[in-house]
């Protein structure tokens, strides 16, 4: 039976690990390579690096980080942030990532999803969606795709976008709730479940994870295949093992590593 995955998200700016709350007020919390290695050794299932480097001439630093992680960490990891073209994707895959996370670039140019899927296979393409609840308006699901850390609305319906992303060739979808991100009050379960029940590809819940119970809810009520955590681990409030043991004790299939 397939295990539910615990994934940690590492935000990297100018080669340093940072934690952002709602994509603003970033704080330097260390070296991404040693954090990645520590999580790998602790039994984490997968890693996501999100490059939030502002200036494009600093982007080369991220490739160095990716290469160094690939030399030390033998679990899958993906890289997102600032990837616009298939060529950008190729660079991070060649540096050692398994997957690319497409977000803003895919909204601006959905064709990049299929181009990347054709070039590298669907398993290498993760569609990362930033989503906000929208109580008013005409969106059928009540959830809207946003970009630029939630500062820009797109008018796109979240469910429609998930469906389209899958059709274009995404192999996985990260559902990141901008409303829940950084709150540590739990994942957006309604949204996560809606998307998980719409698509036939794995769905990763993101945004809001603060306690192991939240992951349990995302993986059961939210129907997610994996849950993304950041602060919970980065600040040392929980260990990989304590989260996994909790989920396993609750009856979920989890990969436990001694």
């Amino acid at each position, binding site marked *: 039976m397939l*295990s539910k995955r615990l994934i940690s998200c590492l935000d990297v700016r100018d080669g340093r690990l940072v934690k952002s709350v709602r994509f603003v007020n970033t704080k330097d919390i260390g070296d991404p390579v040693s954090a990645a290695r520590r999580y790998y050794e602790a039994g984490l299932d997968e890693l996501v690096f999100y490059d939030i480097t502002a200036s494009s001439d600093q982007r080369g630093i991220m490739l160095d980080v990716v290469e160094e992680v690939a030399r030390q960490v*033998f679990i899958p990891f993906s890289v997102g942030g600032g990837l616009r073209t298939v060529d950008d994707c190729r660079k991070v895959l060649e540096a050692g990532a398994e997957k690319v996370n497409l977000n803003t670039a895919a909204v601006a140019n959905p064709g990049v999803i299929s181009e990347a899927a054709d070039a590298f*296979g669907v398993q290498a393409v993760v569609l990362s969606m930033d989503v906000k609840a929208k109580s008013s308006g005409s969106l059928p699901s009540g959830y809207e795709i946003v970009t630029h850390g939630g500062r820009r609305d797109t008018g796109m319906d979240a469910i429609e976008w998930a469906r389209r992303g899958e059709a274009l060739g995404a192999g996985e979808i990260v559902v990141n709730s901008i409303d829940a991100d950084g709150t540590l009050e739990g994942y957006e379960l309604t949204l996560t479940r809606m998307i998980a029940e719409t698509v036939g*590809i794995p769905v990763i819940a993101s945004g809001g994870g603060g306690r192991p119970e939240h992951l349990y809810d995302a993986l059961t009520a939210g129907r997610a295949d994996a849950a993304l955590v950041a602060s919970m681990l980065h600040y040392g409030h929980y260990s990989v093992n304590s989260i996994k043991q909790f989920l396993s004790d609750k009856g979920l299939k989890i990969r436990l*590593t001694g």
Partner: protein
Amino acid sequence: MIHIVDYDAGNQTSVKRALDHLGVGSIITSIPDDLDHAERIIFPGVGHAHSALETLHERGLDVALKSAAARGTPILGICVGCQILLSDSEETDQRCLDLIEGRCLRFKPEDAALKVPHMGWNELRVCSAHPVLRHLRTGDEVYFVHSYYPAPVDDTDVLAKCRYDVEFAAVIGRNNIVATQFHVEKSGPVGLKILDEFVKWDGNAC
């Protein structure tokens, strides 16, 4: 020295890094002549079987791989490199390498909760003792990403199984060939141990 076959199928550098980590020398090559003199060959792969076969053929690597297999060179196939060792595949009309008799089939789960690709960590059931799997135990989890799975005709070619909708062959092998449907280079310490045993293996299955 390990030769890693390069046919633009993606994960050869990940395999090389894992070997570097184990302190084992390796080179990535797309030259058929190199395989003629290889001590051991790793045949990795991600993506489509169809384009993989085309590239192998264009570069003459299909013939070189078959010769190496016939000569007794130890070969490790990984993921797509495992699938196209079989006779054919539901993913393509082309004949595969036919080094192990069988077919590659697509997952077709009736349960909508079972997603395709089968992506993530899943546990193995060891079916047959093999030097390369010396440290592998039933219940060990490894990392899979695939929509097709190998189905050898002969059950004795199945070394370990995994369950996802159906029970499928996760490790196959015959004589000097062993192949994993999962990614040994991304399966943490469990995968690295398989790789480490392969680099010491003399090619005898027992």
